[in-house]
Protein backbone atom coordinates (compact mmCIF):
# COMPACT_ATOMS: atom_id res chain seq x y z
CA UNK A 1 0.00 0.00 0.00
CA UNK A 2 2.81 2.36 0.93
CA UNK A 3 4.51 1.68 -2.38
CA UNK A 4 1.36 2.34 -4.34
CA UNK A 5 0.79 5.56 -2.36
CA UNK A 6 4.26 6.81 -3.23
CA UNK A 7 3.76 5.99 -6.84
CA UNK A 8 0.53 8.02 -6.88
CA UNK A 9 2.36 11.03 -5.48
CA UNK A 10 5.20 10.45 -7.91
CA UNK A 11 2.71 10.41 -10.73
CA UNK A 12 1.25 13.68 -9.57
CA UNK A 13 4.72 15.15 -9.23
CA UNK A 14 5.58 14.01 -12.72
CA UNK A 15 2.49 15.71 -14.05
CA UNK A 16 2.71 18.95 -12.13
CA UNK A 17 6.30 19.76 -11.25
CA UNK A 18 6.89 21.34 -14.65
CA UNK A 19 3.32 22.44 -15.07
CA UNK A 20 3.08 25.61 -17.08
CA UNK A 21 0.16 27.99 -17.23
CA UNK A 22 -0.34 30.81 -19.67
CA UNK A 23 0.98 34.04 -18.16
CA UNK A 24 -1.22 37.11 -17.92
CA UNK A 25 -1.28 38.84 -21.29
CA UNK A 26 0.76 42.02 -21.56
CA UNK A 27 2.43 41.64 -18.22
CA UNK A 28 5.87 40.81 -19.61
CA UNK A 29 6.50 44.23 -21.08
CA UNK A 30 5.31 45.97 -17.95
CA UNK A 31 7.57 43.88 -15.75
CA UNK A 32 10.61 44.46 -17.93
CA UNK A 33 9.89 48.18 -18.06
CA UNK A 34 9.65 48.25 -14.30
CA UNK A 35 12.89 46.35 -13.90
CA UNK A 36 14.69 48.39 -16.54
CA UNK A 37 13.94 51.61 -14.72
CA UNK A 38 15.79 50.12 -11.81
CA UNK A 39 15.85 51.39 -8.27
CA UNK A 40 19.06 53.26 -8.96
CA UNK A 41 17.91 55.15 -11.98
CA UNK A 42 14.62 56.47 -10.63
CA UNK A 43 16.16 58.97 -8.20
CA UNK A 44 18.37 60.14 -11.00
CA UNK A 45 15.38 60.82 -13.19
CA UNK A 46 13.58 62.54 -10.35
CA UNK A 47 16.61 64.72 -9.80
CA UNK A 48 16.80 65.53 -13.46
CA UNK A 49 13.14 66.47 -13.56
CA UNK A 50 13.60 68.61 -10.47
CA UNK A 51 16.58 70.42 -11.94
CA UNK A 52 14.80 71.03 -15.19
CA UNK A 53 11.88 72.40 -13.25
CA UNK A 54 14.11 74.79 -11.36
CA UNK A 55 15.73 75.84 -14.61
CA UNK A 56 12.41 76.48 -16.29
CA UNK A 57 11.01 78.42 -13.35
CA UNK A 58 14.16 80.51 -13.16
CA UNK A 59 14.06 81.13 -16.85
CA UNK A 60 10.43 82.11 -16.70
CA UNK A 61 11.24 84.57 -13.97
CA UNK A 62 13.99 86.06 -16.06
CA UNK A 63 11.75 86.39 -19.05
CA UNK A 64 8.95 88.02 -17.13
CA UNK A 65 11.14 90.42 -15.23
CA UNK A 66 12.97 91.35 -18.40
CA UNK A 67 9.79 92.18 -20.27
CA UNK A 68 8.21 94.26 -17.58
CA UNK A 69 9.52 97.60 -18.87
CA UNK A 70 7.90 97.06 -22.21
CA UNK A 71 4.65 96.14 -20.59
CA UNK A 72 4.93 99.28 -18.54
CA UNK A 73 5.46 101.23 -21.69
CA UNK A 74 2.28 99.95 -23.24
CA UNK A 75 0.13 100.37 -20.21
CA UNK A 76 1.45 103.82 -19.47
CA UNK A 77 0.94 104.92 -23.03
CA UNK A 78 -2.61 103.63 -22.97
CA UNK A 79 -3.24 105.51 -19.79
CA UNK A 80 -1.83 108.66 -21.29
CA UNK A 81 -4.01 108.34 -24.32
CA UNK A 82 -7.01 107.96 -22.09
CA UNK A 83 -6.02 111.08 -20.21
CA UNK A 84 -5.53 112.97 -23.42
CA UNK A 85 -8.96 112.01 -24.63
CA UNK A 86 -10.52 112.90 -21.36
CA UNK A 87 -12.72 116.03 -21.49
CA UNK A 88 -11.06 117.20 -18.30
CA UNK A 89 -7.78 117.63 -20.10
CA UNK A 90 -7.11 121.32 -20.71
CA UNK A 91 -6.84 122.21 -24.34
CA UNK A 92 -3.69 124.16 -23.83
CA UNK A 93 -2.03 121.19 -22.22
CA UNK A 94 -3.13 118.91 -25.00
CA UNK A 95 -1.54 121.18 -27.52
CA UNK A 96 1.81 120.78 -25.94
CA UNK A 97 1.60 117.13 -25.16
CA UNK A 98 3.00 114.43 -27.32
CA UNK A 99 -0.36 112.79 -27.30
CA UNK A 100 -1.70 115.91 -28.84
CA UNK A 101 0.85 115.50 -31.56
CA UNK A 102 -0.10 111.92 -31.89
CA UNK A 103 -3.72 112.86 -32.32
CA UNK A 104 -2.63 115.11 -35.11
CA UNK A 105 -0.80 112.31 -36.72
CA UNK A 106 -3.43 112.06 -39.34
CA UNK A 107 -1.17 114.57 -41.06
CA UNK A 108 -4.15 116.29 -42.49
CA UNK A 109 -2.99 119.40 -40.76
CA UNK A 110 0.31 120.99 -40.52
CA UNK A 111 1.71 120.63 -37.06
CA UNK A 112 3.36 123.82 -36.21
CA UNK A 113 4.74 125.23 -33.07
CA UNK A 114 5.29 128.81 -32.11
CA UNK A 115 8.39 129.17 -34.24
CA UNK A 116 6.62 127.80 -37.27
CA UNK A 117 9.80 126.06 -38.31
CA UNK A 118 8.39 122.57 -38.16
CA UNK A 119 7.71 120.97 -41.53
CA UNK A 120 4.35 119.68 -42.53
CA UNK A 121 3.92 115.95 -41.87
CA UNK A 122 1.67 114.23 -44.30
CA UNK A 123 0.41 110.67 -44.06
CA UNK A 124 1.73 109.62 -47.41
CA UNK A 125 5.16 110.80 -46.33
CA UNK A 126 5.29 108.79 -43.14
CA UNK A 127 7.21 105.86 -44.55
CA UNK A 128 9.72 108.13 -46.15
CA UNK A 129 10.25 110.08 -42.95
CA UNK A 130 10.83 106.94 -40.98
CA UNK A 131 13.36 105.76 -43.50
CA UNK A 132 15.10 109.09 -43.39
CA UNK A 133 15.32 108.98 -39.64
CA UNK A 134 16.82 105.53 -39.75
CA UNK A 135 19.23 106.60 -42.41
CA UNK A 136 20.23 109.63 -40.42
CA UNK A 137 20.75 107.51 -37.40
CA UNK A 138 23.30 105.42 -39.24
CA UNK A 139 25.08 108.54 -40.28
CA UNK A 140 25.23 109.67 -36.71
CA UNK A 141 26.89 106.42 -35.78
CA UNK A 142 29.56 106.72 -38.37
CA UNK A 143 30.31 110.33 -37.53
CA UNK A 144 31.99 111.79 -34.54
CA UNK A 145 31.49 115.34 -35.64
CA UNK A 146 28.91 117.10 -33.48
CA UNK A 147 27.79 119.46 -36.23
CA UNK A 148 27.23 116.51 -38.53
CA UNK A 149 25.05 114.88 -35.96
CA UNK A 150 23.05 118.03 -35.44
CA UNK A 151 22.61 118.42 -39.16
CA UNK A 152 21.51 114.84 -39.45
CA UNK A 153 18.59 115.07 -37.09
CA UNK A 154 17.71 118.68 -37.62
CA UNK A 155 15.05 117.92 -40.27
CA UNK A 156 13.23 115.62 -37.91
CA UNK A 157 13.04 117.79 -34.87
CA UNK A 158 9.58 117.72 -33.40
CA UNK A 159 8.39 114.95 -35.64
CA UNK A 160 5.00 113.62 -34.54
CA UNK A 161 5.00 110.97 -31.93
CA UNK A 162 3.62 108.22 -34.12
CA UNK A 163 6.45 108.69 -36.56
CA UNK A 164 8.92 108.43 -33.76
CA UNK A 165 7.09 105.41 -32.42
CA UNK A 166 7.11 103.84 -35.81
CA UNK A 167 10.83 104.49 -36.02
CA UNK A 168 11.31 102.97 -32.63
CA UNK A 169 9.24 99.94 -33.54
CA UNK A 170 11.38 99.42 -36.59
CA UNK A 171 14.32 99.31 -34.32
CA UNK A 172 13.01 96.18 -32.80
CA UNK A 173 13.81 95.19 -29.32
CA UNK A 174 14.16 96.99 -26.13
CA UNK A 175 17.32 98.68 -27.34
CA UNK A 176 15.08 101.07 -29.15
CA UNK A 177 13.57 102.15 -25.95
CA UNK A 178 16.85 103.21 -24.51
CA UNK A 179 16.35 106.88 -25.03
CA UNK A 180 18.38 109.11 -22.90
CA UNK A 181 18.78 112.73 -22.32
CA UNK A 182 22.06 113.68 -23.84
CA UNK A 183 22.62 116.16 -21.08
CA UNK A 184 21.96 113.69 -18.38
CA UNK A 185 25.11 113.15 -16.39
CA UNK A 186 23.73 110.09 -14.65
CA UNK A 187 26.11 107.22 -14.34
CA UNK A 188 24.14 104.83 -16.47
CA UNK A 189 26.52 102.03 -15.86
CA UNK A 190 25.52 101.89 -12.27
CA UNK A 191 21.95 100.97 -13.23
CA UNK A 192 20.63 97.73 -14.42
CA UNK A 193 19.20 97.72 -17.87
CA UNK A 194 15.74 97.22 -16.50
CA UNK A 195 16.04 100.44 -14.57
CA UNK A 196 17.37 102.16 -17.60
CA UNK A 197 14.51 100.96 -19.70
CA UNK A 198 11.88 101.83 -17.17
CA UNK A 199 13.18 105.28 -16.82
CA UNK A 200 13.59 105.91 -20.50
CA UNK A 201 10.20 104.57 -21.37
CA UNK A 202 8.56 106.74 -18.85
CA UNK A 203 10.24 109.65 -20.56
CA UNK A 204 8.21 108.97 -23.66
CA UNK A 205 5.14 110.29 -22.01
CA UNK A 206 6.64 113.34 -20.43
CA UNK A 207 6.39 115.80 -23.21
CA UNK A 208 7.67 116.74 -26.59
CA UNK A 209 10.54 118.78 -25.35
CA UNK A 210 11.92 115.78 -23.51
CA UNK A 211 11.49 113.38 -26.36
CA UNK A 212 13.18 114.90 -29.27
CA UNK A 213 14.25 113.19 -32.37
CA UNK A 214 17.77 114.10 -31.38
CA UNK A 215 17.48 111.89 -28.41
CA UNK A 216 16.29 108.99 -30.45
CA UNK A 217 18.94 109.56 -33.02
CA UNK A 218 21.64 109.75 -30.44
CA UNK A 219 20.80 106.54 -28.72
CA UNK A 220 19.06 104.32 -31.16
CA UNK A 221 21.42 104.11 -34.09
CA UNK A 222 23.62 101.63 -32.42
CA UNK A 223 20.86 99.08 -32.43
CA UNK A 224 19.71 99.65 -35.97
CA UNK A 225 22.70 97.76 -37.18
CA UNK A 226 25.95 96.91 -35.47
CA UNK A 227 28.55 99.48 -36.22
CA UNK A 228 31.92 98.46 -37.51
CA UNK A 229 33.26 98.82 -34.06
CA UNK A 230 30.52 96.63 -32.66
CA UNK A 231 31.19 93.99 -35.21
CA UNK A 232 34.68 93.61 -33.88
CA UNK A 233 35.54 90.75 -31.62
CA UNK A 234 35.23 91.30 -27.92
CA UNK A 235 36.76 89.32 -25.13
CA UNK A 236 34.60 87.64 -22.60
CA UNK A 237 35.00 85.20 -19.78
CA UNK A 238 32.63 82.92 -17.88
CA UNK A 239 33.05 81.15 -14.57
CA UNK A 240 30.59 78.58 -13.40
CA UNK A 241 29.76 75.97 -10.87
CA UNK A 242 27.55 72.98 -11.53
CA UNK A 243 26.30 69.66 -10.29
CA UNK A 244 27.79 66.83 -12.27
CA UNK A 245 25.91 63.61 -12.91
CA UNK A 246 27.73 60.71 -14.47
CA UNK A 247 26.03 58.25 -16.69
CA UNK A 248 28.12 55.14 -16.15
CA UNK A 249 28.08 52.70 -19.01
CA UNK A 250 29.62 49.27 -18.34
CA UNK A 251 31.17 47.57 -21.27
CA UNK A 252 28.62 45.17 -22.67
CA UNK A 253 31.14 42.98 -24.33
CA UNK A 254 33.52 42.01 -21.57
CA UNK A 255 33.15 39.32 -18.93
CA UNK A 256 32.79 41.68 -16.01
CA UNK A 257 29.56 42.27 -14.22
CA UNK A 258 29.21 45.69 -12.63
CA UNK A 259 26.38 46.42 -10.28
CA UNK A 260 25.33 48.42 -7.27
CA UNK A 261 26.50 51.75 -8.58
CA UNK A 262 26.36 54.27 -5.80
CA UNK A 263 26.88 58.00 -5.95
CA UNK A 264 26.27 60.97 -3.73
CA UNK A 265 22.87 62.56 -3.37
CA UNK A 266 21.44 64.62 -6.18
CA UNK A 267 22.46 67.93 -4.68
CA UNK A 268 25.42 66.74 -2.69
CA UNK A 269 28.43 69.00 -2.53
CA UNK A 270 30.43 66.00 -3.68
CA UNK A 271 28.98 66.60 -7.08
CA UNK A 272 30.08 70.21 -7.32
CA UNK A 273 32.28 70.79 -10.32
CA UNK A 274 33.71 73.91 -11.84
CA UNK A 275 33.84 75.50 -15.22
CA UNK A 276 35.80 78.31 -16.84
CA UNK A 277 35.51 79.74 -20.30
CA UNK A 278 37.45 82.45 -22.04
CA UNK A 279 37.02 83.59 -25.59
CA UNK A 280 35.78 86.02 -28.15
CA UNK A 281 32.31 87.01 -29.11
CA UNK A 282 31.07 88.70 -32.17
CA UNK A 283 27.70 90.15 -32.88
CA UNK A 284 26.60 88.74 -36.18
CA UNK A 285 23.31 90.59 -36.23
CA UNK A 286 20.99 92.30 -33.87
CA UNK A 287 19.68 88.95 -32.77
CA UNK A 288 22.61 86.60 -32.97
CA UNK A 289 25.92 86.69 -31.18
CA UNK A 290 28.54 84.07 -31.81
CA UNK A 291 31.03 83.01 -29.18
CA UNK A 292 34.15 80.92 -29.63
CA UNK A 293 36.09 80.01 -26.55
CA UNK A 294 38.52 77.79 -24.77
CA UNK A 295 36.99 75.94 -21.86
CA UNK A 296 38.28 74.11 -18.82
CA UNK A 297 36.35 71.89 -16.44
CA UNK A 298 37.13 70.38 -13.11
CA UNK A 299 34.91 67.33 -12.78
CA UNK A 300 34.24 65.81 -9.39
CA UNK A 301 34.31 62.05 -9.67
CA UNK A 302 32.96 60.28 -6.63
CA UNK A 303 31.14 57.01 -7.05
CA UNK A 304 31.49 53.33 -6.30
CA UNK A 305 30.37 50.07 -7.81
CA UNK A 306 30.70 46.37 -7.27
CA UNK A 307 32.46 44.27 -9.83
CA UNK A 308 32.71 40.53 -10.34
CA UNK A 309 33.32 38.04 -13.06
CA UNK A 310 30.46 36.53 -14.93
CA UNK A 311 31.22 33.09 -13.46
CA UNK A 312 32.91 32.39 -10.21
CA UNK A 313 36.09 30.45 -9.83
CA UNK A 314 34.65 28.96 -6.68
CA UNK A 315 31.47 27.47 -8.06
CA UNK A 316 29.71 25.11 -5.75
CA UNK A 317 28.54 22.00 -7.56
CA UNK A 318 24.85 22.12 -8.11
CA UNK A 319 22.93 19.34 -6.48
CA UNK A 320 19.21 19.56 -6.38
CA UNK A 321 18.43 22.20 -8.95
CA UNK A 322 15.51 23.40 -6.93
CA UNK A 323 17.87 24.57 -4.22
CA UNK A 324 18.17 28.31 -3.95
CA UNK A 325 21.79 28.92 -4.73
CA UNK A 326 23.92 31.16 -2.64
CA UNK A 327 26.35 33.34 -4.56
CA UNK A 328 29.99 32.71 -3.87
CA UNK A 329 31.42 35.24 -6.26
CA UNK A 330 34.61 37.06 -5.69
CA UNK A 331 32.96 40.44 -5.51
CA UNK A 332 34.95 43.62 -5.10
CA UNK A 333 33.86 47.17 -4.47
CA UNK A 334 35.62 49.85 -6.48
CA UNK A 335 35.64 53.35 -5.05
CA UNK A 336 36.44 56.31 -7.29
CA UNK A 337 37.12 59.63 -5.64
CA UNK A 338 39.07 62.31 -7.43
CA UNK A 339 38.84 65.37 -9.64
CA UNK A 340 39.45 65.33 -13.35
CA UNK A 341 40.67 68.30 -15.31
CA UNK A 342 39.47 68.67 -18.84
CA UNK A 343 40.11 71.23 -21.54
CA UNK A 344 38.56 71.93 -24.87
CA UNK A 345 36.84 74.38 -27.11
CA UNK A 346 33.31 75.56 -27.40
CA UNK A 347 31.22 77.33 -29.94
CA UNK A 348 28.02 78.90 -28.79
CA UNK A 349 25.50 81.39 -29.90
CA UNK A 350 23.26 83.78 -28.05
CA UNK A 351 19.98 84.25 -29.79
CA UNK A 352 17.52 86.94 -28.94
CA UNK A 353 14.31 85.01 -29.22
CA UNK A 354 12.31 87.27 -26.98
CA UNK A 355 11.72 90.88 -27.74
CA UNK A 356 14.17 91.83 -25.09
CA UNK A 357 17.87 92.29 -25.36
CA UNK A 358 18.54 91.34 -21.78
CA UNK A 359 17.55 87.72 -22.12
CA UNK A 360 18.99 85.48 -24.73
CA UNK A 361 18.73 81.85 -25.50
CA UNK A 362 22.11 80.15 -25.50
CA UNK A 363 22.90 77.08 -27.56
CA UNK A 364 26.36 75.62 -27.64
CA UNK A 365 28.43 72.71 -28.76
CA UNK A 366 31.72 71.88 -27.12
CA UNK A 367 34.49 69.41 -27.25
CA UNK A 368 36.85 68.60 -24.43
CA UNK A 369 39.06 65.82 -23.23
CA UNK A 370 40.44 64.76 -19.92
CA UNK A 371 43.95 65.92 -19.21
CA UNK A 372 44.61 63.56 -16.31
CA UNK A 373 46.37 60.27 -16.94
CA UNK A 374 44.11 57.35 -17.80
CA UNK A 375 41.83 56.28 -14.97
CA UNK A 376 42.23 52.68 -13.92
CA UNK A 377 41.20 50.27 -11.21
CA UNK A 378 42.48 46.88 -10.22
CA UNK A 379 40.32 43.81 -10.23
CA UNK A 380 41.67 40.30 -10.08
CA UNK A 381 45.05 40.25 -11.70
CA UNK A 382 44.22 42.86 -14.26
CA UNK A 383 44.16 46.59 -14.55
CA UNK A 384 40.96 47.92 -16.06
CA UNK A 385 40.42 51.33 -17.54
CA UNK A 386 37.63 53.79 -17.09
CA UNK A 387 37.01 55.54 -20.33
CA UNK A 388 36.21 59.20 -20.17
CA UNK A 389 36.24 59.62 -23.89
CA UNK A 390 36.67 62.65 -25.99
CA UNK A 391 33.54 64.41 -24.96
CA UNK A 392 31.18 66.20 -27.22
CA UNK A 393 28.71 68.18 -25.20
CA UNK A 394 25.63 70.10 -26.12
CA UNK A 395 24.65 72.96 -23.90
CA UNK A 396 21.49 74.91 -23.50
CA UNK A 397 20.73 77.86 -21.31
CA UNK A 398 19.43 81.37 -20.92
CA UNK A 399 21.82 84.26 -20.64
CA UNK A 400 20.52 87.20 -18.70
CA UNK A 401 22.35 90.50 -18.63
CA UNK A 402 22.16 91.71 -15.06
CA UNK A 403 24.43 94.72 -15.22
CA UNK A 404 26.18 96.72 -17.85
CA UNK A 405 28.44 99.69 -18.24
CA UNK A 406 30.10 101.44 -21.12
CA UNK A 407 32.91 98.93 -21.03
CA UNK A 408 31.14 95.68 -20.59
CA UNK A 409 28.26 93.67 -19.31
CA UNK A 410 27.75 91.11 -16.60
CA UNK A 411 25.49 88.19 -17.26
CA UNK A 412 24.09 85.15 -15.51
CA UNK A 413 23.60 81.93 -17.37
CA UNK A 414 21.73 78.92 -15.98
CA UNK A 415 22.95 76.16 -18.21
CA UNK A 416 22.35 72.51 -18.84
CA UNK A 417 25.03 70.44 -20.53
CA UNK A 418 24.72 66.93 -21.83
CA UNK A 419 27.39 64.58 -23.12
CA UNK A 420 26.62 63.26 -26.57
CA UNK A 421 29.22 60.52 -26.87
CA UNK A 422 28.35 56.97 -25.96
CA UNK A 423 30.66 54.01 -25.53
CA UNK A 424 33.41 54.27 -28.05
CA UNK A 425 36.12 52.05 -26.64
CA UNK A 426 35.29 48.41 -26.15
CA UNK A 427 38.54 47.73 -24.33
CA UNK A 428 37.47 49.86 -21.38
CA UNK A 429 35.49 48.39 -18.54
CA UNK A 430 33.46 51.50 -17.98
CA UNK A 431 32.59 54.58 -19.96
CA UNK A 432 31.42 57.81 -18.42
CA UNK A 433 29.08 60.23 -20.04
CA UNK A 434 28.49 63.42 -18.07
CA UNK A 435 25.42 65.49 -17.60
CA UNK A 436 25.45 68.71 -15.65
CA UNK A 437 23.26 71.53 -14.51
CA UNK A 438 24.81 74.70 -13.24
CA UNK A 439 25.04 78.43 -13.10
CA UNK A 440 27.61 80.54 -14.89
CA UNK A 441 28.50 84.17 -14.40
CA UNK A 442 30.17 85.94 -17.26
CA UNK A 443 31.64 89.29 -18.07
CA UNK A 444 32.08 90.49 -21.61
CA UNK A 445 33.80 93.58 -22.90
CA UNK A 446 31.99 95.91 -25.24
Amino acid at each position, binding site marked *: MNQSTNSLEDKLKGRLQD*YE*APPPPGMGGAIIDQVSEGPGSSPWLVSLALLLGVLLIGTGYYMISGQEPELQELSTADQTVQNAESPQTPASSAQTSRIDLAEKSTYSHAATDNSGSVPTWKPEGKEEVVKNILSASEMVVSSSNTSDIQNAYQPFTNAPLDILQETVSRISGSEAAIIADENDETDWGSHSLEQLNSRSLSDINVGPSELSTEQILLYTPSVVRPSKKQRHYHWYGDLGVFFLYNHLQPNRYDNLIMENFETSGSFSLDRLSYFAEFGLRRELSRRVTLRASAVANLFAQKYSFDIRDETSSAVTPVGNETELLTPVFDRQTIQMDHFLLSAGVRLSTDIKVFNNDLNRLMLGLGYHRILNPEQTFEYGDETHTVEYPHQLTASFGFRKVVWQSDKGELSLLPVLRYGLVHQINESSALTIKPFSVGLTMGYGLK
Partner: protein
Amino acid sequence: MTELTILIRNCLKGRRKYQEELYSRYSGLVMGVCMRYARDQSQAEDIFQEAFIKVYQNLSELQEPNALPGWVKKIAVNTALNYIRPRVDRTDPINDQTDADDQEYHRLIDHLTNEQLVSIINEMPEGYRFVFNMSVIDGYNHREISDHLGIAESTSRSQLTAAKKLLRQRLKKLGINRYESVN
Protein backbone atom coordinates in the same frame (compact mmCIF):
# COMPACT_ATOMS: atom_id res chain seq x y z
CA MET B 1 29.63 29.59 -23.46
CA THR B 2 26.23 28.00 -23.06
CA GLU B 3 23.00 29.40 -24.31
CA LEU B 4 21.82 30.09 -20.78
CA THR B 5 25.07 31.85 -19.98
CA ILE B 6 24.59 34.18 -22.90
CA LEU B 7 20.99 34.77 -21.90
CA ILE B 8 21.86 35.60 -18.30
CA ARG B 9 24.80 37.76 -19.22
CA ASN B 10 22.82 39.87 -21.61
CA CYS B 11 19.95 40.21 -19.18
CA LEU B 12 22.41 41.49 -16.63
CA LYS B 13 23.67 43.97 -19.17
CA GLY B 14 20.14 45.26 -19.43
CA ARG B 15 19.45 44.19 -22.96
CA ARG B 16 15.75 44.12 -23.44
CA LYS B 17 15.75 41.52 -26.16
CA TYR B 18 17.26 38.96 -23.81
CA GLN B 19 15.06 40.02 -20.93
CA GLU B 20 12.10 39.28 -23.14
CA GLU B 21 13.63 35.96 -24.07
CA LEU B 22 13.99 35.08 -20.40
CA TYR B 23 10.40 36.01 -19.81
CA SER B 24 9.25 34.02 -22.79
CA ARG B 25 11.09 30.93 -21.60
CA TYR B 26 10.05 30.87 -17.99
CA SER B 27 6.83 32.83 -17.65
CA GLY B 28 4.76 29.70 -18.17
CA LEU B 29 6.69 27.80 -15.52
CA VAL B 30 6.39 30.64 -13.02
CA MET B 31 2.70 31.05 -13.70
CA GLY B 32 2.25 27.30 -13.24
CA VAL B 33 3.80 27.51 -9.79
CA CYS B 34 1.69 30.54 -8.95
CA MET B 35 -1.48 28.75 -10.03
CA ARG B 36 -0.71 25.78 -7.79
CA TYR B 37 -0.11 27.88 -4.69
CA ALA B 38 -2.54 30.72 -5.21
CA ARG B 39 -6.13 30.77 -4.12
CA ASP B 40 -7.36 32.05 -7.49
CA GLN B 41 -6.26 33.52 -10.80
CA SER B 42 -6.06 37.08 -9.49
CA GLN B 43 -3.81 36.12 -6.61
CA ALA B 44 -1.71 34.03 -8.96
CA GLU B 45 -1.14 37.00 -11.23
CA ASP B 46 -0.02 39.16 -8.32
CA ILE B 47 2.46 36.52 -7.22
CA PHE B 48 3.59 36.04 -10.79
CA GLN B 49 4.45 39.70 -11.21
CA GLU B 50 6.29 39.89 -7.95
CA ALA B 51 8.18 36.70 -8.66
CA PHE B 52 9.36 37.77 -12.07
CA ILE B 53 10.57 41.09 -10.82
CA LYS B 54 12.61 39.21 -8.24
CA VAL B 55 14.01 37.01 -10.96
CA TYR B 56 15.31 39.99 -12.89
CA GLN B 57 16.53 41.83 -9.86
CA ASN B 58 18.40 38.88 -8.39
CA LEU B 59 19.71 37.36 -11.56
CA SER B 60 23.22 38.46 -10.69
CA GLU B 61 23.05 36.19 -7.65
CA LEU B 62 22.77 33.11 -9.79
CA GLN B 63 26.11 31.42 -9.78
CA GLU B 64 25.52 28.55 -12.18
CA PRO B 65 23.71 29.40 -15.41
CA ASN B 66 22.50 25.83 -15.94
CA ALA B 67 20.58 26.02 -12.68
CA LEU B 68 18.47 28.86 -14.04
CA PRO B 69 15.18 26.93 -14.51
CA GLY B 70 15.25 25.51 -10.99
CA TRP B 71 16.33 28.84 -9.56
CA VAL B 72 13.47 30.64 -11.26
CA LYS B 73 11.03 28.07 -9.98
CA LYS B 74 12.42 28.35 -6.49
CA ILE B 75 11.97 32.09 -6.51
CA ALA B 76 8.38 31.64 -7.62
CA VAL B 77 7.70 29.22 -4.75
CA ASN B 78 9.36 31.49 -2.20
CA THR B 79 7.44 34.45 -3.50
CA ALA B 80 4.18 32.58 -3.17
CA LEU B 81 5.06 31.56 0.38
CA ASN B 82 5.93 35.11 1.34
CA TYR B 83 2.93 36.57 -0.43
CA ILE B 84 0.27 34.30 0.98
CA ARG B 85 1.84 33.39 4.33
CA PRO B 86 -0.49 30.42 4.68
CA ARG B 87 -2.28 29.78 7.89
CA VAL B 88 -1.77 26.18 8.86
CA ASP B 89 -4.50 25.12 11.20
CA ARG B 90 -4.74 22.04 13.30
CA THR B 91 -5.25 19.05 11.12
CA ASP B 92 -8.84 18.02 11.11
CA PRO B 93 -9.43 14.29 11.10
CA ILE B 94 -10.40 13.13 7.67
CA ASN B 95 -12.68 10.25 7.30
CA ASP B 96 -10.65 7.88 5.20
CA GLN B 97 -13.02 6.30 2.81
CA THR B 98 -10.53 5.93 0.02
CA ASP B 99 -11.00 2.29 -0.57
CA ALA B 100 -10.18 2.44 -4.27
CA ASP B 101 -6.97 0.74 -5.23
CA ASP B 102 -3.95 2.54 -6.60
CA GLN B 103 -4.56 1.57 -10.18
CA GLU B 104 -7.92 3.25 -10.08
CA TYR B 105 -6.33 6.55 -9.01
CA HIS B 106 -3.77 6.22 -11.73
CA ARG B 107 -6.53 5.86 -14.27
CA LEU B 108 -8.32 8.82 -12.82
CA ILE B 109 -5.24 10.98 -13.03
CA ASP B 110 -4.60 9.90 -16.58
CA HIS B 111 -8.05 11.09 -17.53
CA LEU B 112 -7.59 14.50 -15.97
CA THR B 113 -5.80 17.45 -17.49
CA ASN B 114 -3.10 19.32 -15.59
CA GLU B 115 -5.49 22.21 -15.14
CA GLN B 116 -8.02 19.89 -13.52
CA LEU B 117 -5.38 18.47 -11.22
CA VAL B 118 -4.30 21.96 -10.21
CA SER B 119 -7.93 22.84 -9.64
CA ILE B 120 -8.30 19.87 -7.30
CA ILE B 121 -5.23 20.95 -5.35
CA ASN B 122 -6.50 24.51 -5.18
CA GLU B 123 -9.70 23.32 -3.60
CA MET B 124 -7.81 22.04 -0.59
CA PRO B 125 -7.54 24.22 2.53
CA GLU B 126 -4.61 26.59 2.42
CA GLY B 127 -2.43 24.67 4.85
CA TYR B 128 -2.96 21.37 3.06
CA ARG B 129 -2.37 22.97 -0.29
CA PHE B 130 0.94 24.47 0.68
CA VAL B 131 2.31 21.42 2.42
CA PHE B 132 1.18 19.15 -0.39
CA ASN B 133 2.67 21.37 -3.09
CA MET B 134 5.92 21.85 -1.23
CA SER B 135 6.35 18.23 -0.29
CA VAL B 136 4.92 16.26 -3.18
CA ILE B 137 5.37 18.54 -6.16
CA ASP B 138 8.34 20.78 -5.29
CA GLY B 139 10.40 18.33 -3.24
CA TYR B 140 10.83 20.11 0.06
CA ASN B 141 11.45 17.93 3.09
CA HIS B 142 9.51 18.41 6.30
CA ARG B 143 12.28 20.34 7.99
CA GLU B 144 12.33 22.85 5.17
CA ILE B 145 8.56 23.06 5.15
CA SER B 146 8.50 23.66 8.88
CA ASP B 147 11.12 26.39 8.49
CA HIS B 148 9.27 28.12 5.69
CA LEU B 149 5.81 27.91 7.19
CA GLY B 150 6.84 28.33 10.79
CA ILE B 151 5.25 25.08 11.93
CA ALA B 152 6.54 21.96 13.64
CA GLU B 153 7.78 19.12 11.48
CA SER B 154 5.15 16.87 12.99
CA THR B 155 2.49 19.33 11.94
CA SER B 156 3.91 19.30 8.46
CA ARG B 157 3.70 15.52 8.35
CA SER B 158 0.16 15.39 9.63
CA GLN B 159 -0.89 18.10 7.20
CA LEU B 160 0.61 16.16 4.34
CA THR B 161 -1.11 12.96 5.37
CA ALA B 162 -4.42 14.76 5.62
CA ALA B 163 -3.83 16.47 2.26
CA LYS B 164 -3.18 13.18 0.56
CA LYS B 165 -6.33 11.66 1.96
CA LEU B 166 -8.35 14.67 0.94
CA LEU B 167 -6.86 14.52 -2.52
CA ARG B 168 -7.90 10.91 -2.88
CA GLN B 169 -11.39 11.73 -1.81
CA ARG B 170 -11.60 14.50 -4.35
CA LEU B 171 -10.10 12.37 -7.06
CA LYS B 172 -12.48 9.55 -6.37
CA LYS B 173 -15.45 11.88 -6.32
CA LEU B 174 -14.33 13.50 -9.51
CA GLY B 175 -13.78 10.10 -11.09
CA ILE B 176 -17.25 8.91 -10.14
CA ASN B 177 -18.77 12.10 -11.44
CA ARG B 178 -16.81 11.76 -14.59
CA TYR B 179 -17.89 8.16 -15.19
CA GLU B 180 -21.42 9.04 -14.36
CA SER B 181 -21.36 11.87 -16.82
CA VAL B 182 -19.84 9.63 -19.48
CA ASN B 183 -22.40 6.99 -18.84
